């Protein structure tokens, strides 16, 4: 049973990353009509920025949690201003191709300087050790990742669904021209939205740095799984992305325990099943 709980916890942690990343993809897709292939590379950058902050600037984990998303978010906003904005009105696929190119560049540069091996990032002192829950031993850092990700996801949901800013955002998603006519600066909102989505990816990167080592390709395979998560959940609903992300992480964790051979593929197999039964995805509407 211990092993089962341990795999469930791993599943919840992976689920947190799926949720944070697919949430960002959904937000970006809503405003920019672009599937951000660079999302995995920016997640990796978040982890690397945390690593640099600690090793070059002596800035600790807690500040990195705040600074890395901001730094990577600014980088993302520069990308949006210099490149992505020129794709408005073009076929969707050009956005995918452009961001794929950006992902190759970012990953290639990091691979050049850091190879393919991992760099260690220590767990902050405050979150070291673990506690005995009676039925299992819980490493505090892992528990923290799950709780904190959940809080961030729910905060993002609240921001978009319940605040005035979020209302503007949803309105601009539906009809940007009309919202502009009301005097809202939509292009700036698009830039900020991309920054927000990218910041969420970077935040996931910082959270994962002490668990999975900091590697240039840490986001490359992850983004493909997240794509499958997005296909399963659909990008129509914020809460849908969060729930699907966590649920698939847990299912993956359970698979690791009951049938480890399929743990790499279970998300893709589920995607196939969902497409066969309900082609629009679990929360999606017909396109």
């Amino acid at each position, binding site marked *: 049973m211990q092993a089962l709980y341990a795999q469930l916890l791993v599943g919840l942690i992976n689920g947190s990353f799926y949720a944070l990343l697919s949430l960002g993809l959904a937000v970006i897709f809503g405003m920019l009509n672009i599937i951000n292939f660079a999302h995995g590379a920016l997640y990796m950058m978040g982890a690397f920025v945390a690593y640099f902050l600690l090793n070059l600037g002596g800035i600790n984990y807690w500040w990195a949690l705040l600074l890395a998303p901001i730094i990577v978010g600014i980088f993302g906003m520069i990308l949006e201003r210099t490149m992505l904005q020129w*794709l408005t*009105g073009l076929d969707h696929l050009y956005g995918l191709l452009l961001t794929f190119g950006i992902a190759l560049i*970012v990953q*290639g540069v990091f691979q050049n300087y850091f190879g393919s091996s991992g760099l260690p990032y220590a767990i902050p002192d405050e979150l070291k050790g673990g506690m005995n829950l009676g039925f299992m031993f819980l490493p505090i850092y892992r528990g923290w990742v799950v709780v904190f990700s959940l809080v961030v996801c729910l905060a993002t949901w609240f921001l978009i669904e319940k605040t005035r800013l979020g209302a503007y955002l949803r309105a601009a998603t539906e009809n940007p021209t009309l919202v502009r006519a009301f005097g809202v600066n939509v292009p700036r909102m698009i830039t900020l939205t991309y920054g927000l989505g990218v910041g969420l990816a970077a935040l996931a990167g910082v959270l994962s740095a002490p668990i999975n080592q900091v590697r240039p390709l840490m986001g490359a*395979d992850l983004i493909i799984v997240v794509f*499958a998560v997005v296909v399963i959940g659909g990008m129509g609903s914020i809460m849908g992305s969060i729930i699907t992300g966590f649920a698939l992480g847990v299912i993956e964790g359970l698979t690791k325990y009951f049938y480890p051979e399929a743990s790499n*593929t279970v998300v893709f197999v589920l995607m*196939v099943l969902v497409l066969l039964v309900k082609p629009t995805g679990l929360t999606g509407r017909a*396109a």
Partner: protein
Amino acid sequence: MTTLTDDTLPATPRAMRDEMIAFALMALLLASVPFTGVYPFFVMQALCFALLACAFNLLIGYGGLLSFGHAMFLGTAGYCSAHALKVWALPPELGILVGIAAAFVLSLITGYISIRRQGIYFSMITLALSQLLYFIYLQAPFTHGEDGIQGIPQGHMFGLFDLSKPTVLYYVVLAGFLAGFLLIFRIINSPFGEVLKAIRENEPRAISLGYRTDQYKFLAFVLSGTLAGFAGALKVFVAQNASLTDVHWSMSGEVVLMTLVGGLGTIFGPVVGAFVIIAMQQYLAGFGQWVTVIQGSIFVICVLTFRRGVIGEIAHYFRRSL
């Protein structure tokens, strides 16, 4: 919504004539390669990728469907051909058939699943499916995991042509490439191809005219996947191995890049793109990971400034169809 190619000329006799002349020139040029001292292995490799890119282009350039998983057909056909040649000791022509048949079956299944979603979802689904296959091949015993299938016997094609001789192999690969290319050329100019273009330009309108667009797209997907499998089967004879790199997502990305550089929706663009990218990899091999950075930069530059690709720009400038 802007479409992929803004200047699709109708299939006039002049356009057909231009294309036939260009095809004859290409065939002549490629046939003379063994007499020029150019390294034939490089050209054969490029030809396999050119056929793969042409097959991919059939789907995106004429069907408007961006598959981000075409490596799965290349790799599957490669593995199955290699297994048939090495373990079952089949002659080359049957080995190729086994590979094509495998790609055909795979494209039936993956096409049935992925055609259910449109646009951007289609790309993500094909990518996820190819990643699923990657993990299956990583664990399946017959692929030999990380090592791949190595030392594949080349044998005698139809019992006549000794494929272990580079020149003979070159002409067999060239014949295969030209056959595949002509088939794609024929498909594009057929009534089926015209309907496909109509769907790409305006799907709701095609539906309103009574076309079952999903069936057309499915057939295009199967044709494209099967031809990509043909490229994979040919590649086995050139590389004499079948490995995981052929199924990896980065391979799918390279095919996209080749077609983009040459020109989406042009007939000769994918061929030119394949030669450019393979040559680039050859000459920049010493730069390690910078090759990835350069490839990424080409993606960015192409999308931002050069969306028609090399052949597309030339065709646009001279107002010809190529």
